Structures are given as C-alpha cells and as structure tokens.
C-alpha cells in the first residue's frame, strides 16, 4: 500500500445522506474476478441520470468526495471501496460513516475522515461557487481544506498510523517477517509440501 500524507485533488460534492453500498456498487457487479476495474460500477444506477454529479466533466476526475452523513451503510461488500478507488477517489469526508465500510476502507488505504455537517455544507457551497476547485488533504495534521476553509477531521490513530506507514494487513504481518522466517526454519520435515508434486 502506498504511504498517504498530503495531497490535493478535485473535490466532488455528493449532496445525499445514507449513501448505502448497494448504491455505491450494485450487486450485479460482484461476479467479477478482479479487485480492480470497478470504476464503471461506481454509483452505476445514479449514473443513469445525466445530471448526476460524476457525469459532469468538471468532476469526472474527482479525488476527494464530500458526502452527506451515514455514508457506506448496508451490505459489507468490500467492492464498494474498490469501486471508489478505481474511479480515482483517495478520500471521502462525511459527518458519519458506517462501521464496516470504514473498516474496509482502512484495509484498502482509503481515507474516511469525519467532519461536521456544517463543514460539509460549507464545502459544498465553496465547490458550487467554484466547480472544479481542489481540496487539500493533510493526513498528519488531520485537516482538509478548500480555499480559505480548513476543517479538522477525525480518524482513529491506529488507522492513521497504518495509512501513513503505507501498511495494509499484509504489510503489518510482514513486520513480523523475521519471526515467520525463523518459524519456517524450524518447521519439521514431515509436515506437508505440495511441491514437488507426488501422486500425479
């Protein structure tokens, strides 16, 4: 996982609350065999509407999503995070997140920052006044800024540390690599090995 510190990208207003993961990615897209390539699946139903925010060219390259409260509710599908990342988003800010979605995001190196509802609305107004404006996300200082407005966001210290270190679960386990290697060195010779293949 890439280390996350500070970045800027086009801010996208998603003026809806209770954005559930069925809306983020409908079930029909879960049959695929890859963990990537879900960008077309992101908000697939809503994208049928030409007025939908991501259909506006100025927001098509969005990287920072500013959404209404209760983002990511419903089904636990990890595909929701994959789809947001595949579209190009790096972070989403909301007044409230569903737990499972937030946990899945942390595993995938995707920032979910909590800001207040007032700050959300203030950011929406700023974007409306200047569509295509960039938001700057500063993870070490836990701030998100658009123009003159800066909001502090909440993220749990363990996830923040993992994102800044660029560690996914696998990355974390690999910190114990010496322990794994020494465990393997003592692995008894009778234990199973699939290779070289026998019985073929």
């Amino acid at each position: 996982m890439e280390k996350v510190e500070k970045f800027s990208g086009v801010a996208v207003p998603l003026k809806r609350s209770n954005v559930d993961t069925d809306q983020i990615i409908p079930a029909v897209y879960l049959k695929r065999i890859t963990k990537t390539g879900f960008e077309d699946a992101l908000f697939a139903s809503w994208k049928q509407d030409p007025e939908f925010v991501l259909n506006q060219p100025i927001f098509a390259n969005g990287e920072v999503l500013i959404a209404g409260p209760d983002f990511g509710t419903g089904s636990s599908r990890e595909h929701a995070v994959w789809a947001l990342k595949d579209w190009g988003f790096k972070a989403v800010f909301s007044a409230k997140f569903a737990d499972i979605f937030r946990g899945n995001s942390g595993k995938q190196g995707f920032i979910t920052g909590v800001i207040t509802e007032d700050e959300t609305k203030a950011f929406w107004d700023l974007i409306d006044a200047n569509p295509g404006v960039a938001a700057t996300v500063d993870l070490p200082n836990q701030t998100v800024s658009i123009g003159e407005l800066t909001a502090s966001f909440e993220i749990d210290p363990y996830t923040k540390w993992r994102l800044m270190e660029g560690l996914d679960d696998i990355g974390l386990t690999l910190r114990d690599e010496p322990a794994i290697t020494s465990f393997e060195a003592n692995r008894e010779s009778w234990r199973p090995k699939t290779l070289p293949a026998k019985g073929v």
Partner: protein
Amino acid sequence: MSTKSKPLTLAEKLWASHLVAQGKDGAPDLLYIDLHLVHEVTSPQAFDGLRLAGRKVRRPDLTIATEDHNTPTIDIDKPIADLTSRTQIEALRKNAAEFGIRLHSLGDKNQGIVHVVGPQLGLTMPGITVVCGDSHTSTHGAFGALAMGIGTSEVEHVLATQTLPLKSFKTMAINVEGTLRPGVTAKDIILAVIAKISTGGGQGYVLEYRGSAIRALSMEGRMTICNMSIEAGARAGMVAPDETTFAYLKDRPHAPQGADWDKALEYWKSLPTDEGAVFDAEVFLDADKLDPFVTWGTNPGQGVSLLDSVPDPADIKDPNERAAAERALEYMDLKAGTPMKEIAVQTVFLGSCTNSRIEDLRAAAAIVKGQKKAEGVRMMVVPGSQKVRLQAEEEGIDKIFKEFGAEWRFAGCSMCLGMNPDQLAVGERAASTSNRNFEGRQGKGARTHLVSPLVAAATAIRGTLSSPADLEVLV
C-alpha cells in the same frame, strides 16, 4: 502455579505449536499455515491483490489449487458453456501458472472437490493448520488438524505471508458414546448434533468430537462429521488422531516417508487432548439410540429422526425459532404432523464435500444394487474427485448406479450449491447428501432434505424419504 504441566486440549496444542507472534494490546495472534487449498471462486481477487502490491506467493510449495465449484459434471472435454464460470476457471489457470502454484484442472485425475483432494493426496495430516477460502475446510479437522474456512482478503494474506492473524477460540467437547445401529451413520450423528446445539451453538468454538462412537468411525465418516461443524456455526471441528488416522494416511503420495513417518507418528500420538484438560463447553449424544436423521426445514439445525413427523411450530417455545419454523414449512410446502417417511422427492443427489468419498459411494451402491429406481425419481451421483470416480469404476460401482438408472457424473461440487448447471427446478424436492438446505441453495425455489448416503439410496428406491430398514420389509 506451574503452566508446564497444564493439561491441554488438541486444539490448544495446535494453536501453541503454530504461534509465530503473540498479539499485543488485544491484537490477534499470528499463526503459521501449513497447507493452503485454493479454488476458482474465492481466489481471483486475492491473486489480483498480490499483483497490485507486487507481491509473490510466499510458499507455493504449501499451496495447491483445484477446480471444483463452477465445473460442469458432464461434457468436461468441451469448453465450459457458462461464460462467467469459464472466466473464473481460466483466471485460476492463469494465476496458478503465474505464481507457480500446483493446479489440478478439469480432466486431471486429482481434480475434484478441494476437501476430497487434500486428504486423498495425503497432504492433510494430524498436527497441521489448513485453510481454504471455503467454509467447509473444517472437513480436514477429521485428521486432528486445525482447519478453517477464510475470506478472500485472508486468502491473499496467506498467499503473501503463509500466516494468518487469528482471534483466540473457546473449546467444546462433543461426546458421542455408544454403538451406532445398522443403517445409522456419521451423517446422522452430525445432523443430530446440529439439531441439538442449533446452527449458532458452535459460534466462537472449536469443536472436538470424542467418544467411542467417533473412535469407531472410518476417516470418511469423521470427515463427514467435521465437514458440517460450520453448520453449527463453529470455527472448526476436530477428531484426535489414532490408528485409524495413521492407517488411512500411510503410503499416500504426500504422507511422510521413512524416518519422517516415524518422527511424525511419535508427535501425532502426543496430540490427543490431555487427561484433565478442561473444555469450555460439553455436549453429550447417545449413539445407541440414534435413528437416521433428516432435515425438514431450511437450515441444517431443523432436523428430526426419520421415524418422526414434521414438527408443529406451535410446539416451539422460542418465538424466533417458531417463526423460522413457520417460514420453513411454508417454503418447504410441508404440513406439521406429516410423517417424514411420507415425503416424496423428485431428485436424489449423492455427492458434495460432505458425502462423495469412495466409502459413501460404496455404501449407497450396496443398497441400490439389483433394485429398481422409483418411478419419476432422478438420481445423480457425483464423485468427490476424479480419483474417487476412477476407483469406483474399477470396483464396478458405476455400473451398479447406471443399471439402477442413476446419472454417473464427473467430479465437482455440483448440485450442492448449483454454481454449475446442476440445479433443482422451482419447487423441486430433493433428498441430498450435501450440507446446506438453505432457501434457494440448490436452485431457485428448490426444496432440500439433508440425508445420509444410505437414506439417499433407500429414498431413490422407494421415492419417499426412507432408510435401508424400510427396504428389508419389501424384500
């Protein structure tokens, strides 16, 4: 207080012997994985994750893949007709080649249900940890292994690190004492256990099946029991290794050889739960009194003796269970009070990772030999692996089934979950030797009764749920 001499359960011994790093501050322990089994459905995103992160498979030599969930059981020499299935199979073949993983593809003699293939190759053995992206990995616990089903993210984790962070578990002893009557088998024991402790009764536990009735079972029977531990919600199920285990393993392709065998054997004999070890919970079941068991509802805990009748939801005290029973009877189109033996089926399925091993096929073949299949009943026999199929053919078992009028298929998961074309029609009722009777599991609107291979065979003859004992009356 001396911890040195603290008596341990089998499961605790396995945990301790695989601990790579102790979790600090509430973090999970990191355990080493001895054997990772892979199949086409839950692995593609895991391999894709490795590619994205530029990671390799740490131990291809502890990993093995087979094609089972999606594979057709007829015309296996032709391209797979279903495009989604074909894509998943092709992805597995590509991933296995790219990451250097041994794969047994359709047509290969070692291809088959992943939980049949591991033991048949002698890869599954006592004292090891086994994982697979499939909930029925608990099957391998029959050898005295700690075997668990995992999710796709965890599959990727094991591929990359050969370890898994795991939260600790509680232990439950399932004591089955006594002698099974003729016609009563391992499947009946586990269906009775699940009916007794319910589908959530094992949650958070590793189950250890103990007692004289378990000791008397073959490895196939023990696998059937451990297989369905997950149906009780358990993390895993196990049976302590003994002479039956060692005899089954000896001289299998990947079983230890020579001095390694002697060393292994000495260690394996130290694995059974110590005298005085304490289980967090205990359950007792009397094998002497057990009848053939069948399910009437839509979860594996909704089962009764074959001699019994469909229960009346009004008699169930727990309001949630009563409501579940009412819904189940409606879905199953059954009336309370109907004797189980009067329930007519249209299909009999003999197969799945629960009951598709050679012993299961032999047992069912012995019942149907020379008999006539009931009018209007379809019977499908799907061996657990190509090797089982070949062995059955060598023994003439395929002929017995064919003469009886059953369909003799190629190996795979087949109708157990209907990911391939082997499905039941809407409203169709089946006696199935598989493990899940969930709504729609074997096909949209399909009705499943879980049964043993013996009950499956007798049912195919009589057309209604039956045991071999009912046939003796006919003869």
